[in-house]
């Protein structure tokens, strides 16, 4: 058995990883079931033909919102807990024996932060295009909400996301057995010492997080403001056509599509993609836009390998003629060669 240099750091990082796997199972399932329900209700998988489903399918929409917030790593849901633990484990590794690794670790943490923020971007796109805005097709008005058992399937996963986010101390105590078996240390003792309300994986001075207090304060100030506004002013509300800077002829086609929402990413990270664009001229009466986005690595690594395999297969194909007489000839020739080799 190998010895672990810094068992408590290893336990922290391993807890973060295991916690994230658990979280991922919950919110990914929830999002898959949500998109499945959308597919079932609309028989449509193309983002460009969906939209406005929150009003047609409120159960699926609100459950998917929980999944979206959780997978963007937003507090107080579960995705944030594992992100927080992961960032903490990056920050605590400073006592490592190697200076180089010491310097690399915080920069990698910056990369993790970038990826987490990008996940938020993607999730806003996913949710906004499918569930918000106006329906892009007329037949979406017939979309039906999830049935009773579908709701159960969505709800228990959504509840799992919320509970895993609100009660991290209890979950970490459960994970403790695994980390003890693998690296010989765990966080349960320190976590238990600080009580069930406050999560402090190493010590209170270093870092602490309490999702329940967090949620309580945000919810309390939210409700207080709501009540104060109603009491001091009024709650009058009028519904009208969207304002949109006074533009009257608004159609659902003017909303951002998934491609449009992702356009800044394509622009900023252009060197990382292999992109072909065909843009129409400004005076084109029937404009056609075409963008093909591909991965560089596909052409740098996979296509050459595939071509090599194909060429080798073609060479072998020359031998494979499919006539029994040819195969008998091969066997005979092989036999002769081997006999000659044995004789020599």
């Amino acid at each position, binding site marked *: 058995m190998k010895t672990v240099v810094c068992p408590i750091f290893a336990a922290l990082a391993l807890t973060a990883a295991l916690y994230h796997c658990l979280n991922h199972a919950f919110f990914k399932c929830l999002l898959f079931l949500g998109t499945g329900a959308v597919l079932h209700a609309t028989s449509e998988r193309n983002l460009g033909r969906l939209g406005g489903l929150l009003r047609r399918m409120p159960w699926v929409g609100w459950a998917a919102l929980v999944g979206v917030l959780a997978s963007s790593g*937003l507090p107080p849901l579960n995705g944030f807990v594992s992100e927080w633990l992961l960032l903490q484990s990056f920050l605590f590794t400073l006592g490592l024996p190697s200076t180089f690794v010491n310097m690399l670790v915080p*920069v990698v943490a910056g990369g993790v932060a970038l990826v987490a923020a990008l996940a938020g*971007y993607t999730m806003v796109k996913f949710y906004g295009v499918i569930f918000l805005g106006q329906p892009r097709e007329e037949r979406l008005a017939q979309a039906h909400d999830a049935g009773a058992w579908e709701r159960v399937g969505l709800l228990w996963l959504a509840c799992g996301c919320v509970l895993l986010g609100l009660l991290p101390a209890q979950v970490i105590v459960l994970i403790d057995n695994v980390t003890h078996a693998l690296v010989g240390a765990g966080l349960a003792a320190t976590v238990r010492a600080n009580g069930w309300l406050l999560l402090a994986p190493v010590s209170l001075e270093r870092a602490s997080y309490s999702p329940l207090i967090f949620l309580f304060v945000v919810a309390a100030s939210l409700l207080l403001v709501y009540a104060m506004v109603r009491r001091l002013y*009024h709650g009058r509300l*009028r519904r009208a056509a*969207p304002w949109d800077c006074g533009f009257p002829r608004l159609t659902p086609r003017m909303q951002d599509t998934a491609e449009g*929402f992702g356009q800044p990413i394509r622009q*900023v990270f252009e060197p990382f993609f292999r992109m072909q664009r065909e843009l129409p001229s400004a005076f084109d009466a029937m404009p056609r836009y075409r963008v093909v986005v591909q991965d560089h690595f596909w052409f740098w690594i996979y296509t050459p390998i595939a071509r090599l395999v194909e060429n080798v297969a073609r060479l072998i194909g020359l031998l494979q003629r499919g006539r029994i007489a040819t195969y008998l000839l091969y066997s005979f020739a092989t036999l002769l060669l081997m006999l000659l080799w044995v004789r020599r």
Partner: protein
Amino acid sequence: MGAALNWSGLLSQLLEIALAVLGAPLLTGWVNQCRAWLQNKSAPPLLLPYRTLHKLFNKEAVIATHASPLFRATPYVVFGCMALACAIVPSLSTDLPLASAADAIALVGLFAVARVFIALGAFDIGTAFGTLGARREMLVGFLAEPALLMVLFTSFLISGSTSLATIVENLAGRELAIYPALAFAGVAFTMVSLAENARVPVDNPATHLELTMIHEAMILEYSGRHLALIEWAASLKLFAYSCIGLALFFPWGVARAGAPLDLFLALPVLIVKLALGGALLALIETASAKMRIFRVPEFLAGAFLLAVIGMLVHLLLGA
């Protein structure tokens, strides 16, 4: 937690929330006034933001016919997030019971919650402007968030904690010395907060011109009390960011635990610091021009690199 629940802690916590919620529009008014002076315009009254809020709260809220509950809930959620953000930043005292509930990483998460909700709210009506604003806001946000975390990492490394209160106690308790790492981080933080608060080189808070706006495009459909709450939350965000900057880079004068009388000193010190910071912000906004949206990634990548340099300086030189 038990030790933190004392009366002076509770008092300073409540005082801080009250100061932030009630005083944040004043900071916005002060920045606007300074900017008008610097640009040779006649300045709006200092209390104009309060009057605007009062006017908006009195007005009837008009929302689109197909707006969902998410659209109506967004202003309250954003306001709640910003109130908690102001509560955990040690602006007056480091003796804050709520500070143990959310450390600096959770604070970054809190800003992200507000951003995601406001972007979803913008998506909800399905207008071209709203989605355009949401798209740009998410772009700026996702580039600013890692830079902000790297700035915070530098201070975590110096003070050995991710709790803002502990960081400030640690930094304020040292003898006066110049930390090169903090200087780099400070410049990076200024750049990030300009972007996050929709200030001039990145966005223009004073314009309703479609092509230049990010934040204003997202909130175009809000009116009445919803708009008032969003405007108020925006000034709370500016207040919170200013207080984070002051706490990390100019932590002197903040009251410590066990010395509640220091609050009487901390309050005027904070007001002076905020007034100077607001004037500096107005100066930056006057001296710089708004840049194209696709120059913003370069600007924020610059902030990220500065923050990384700050951290490497700390790790290499130990300073």
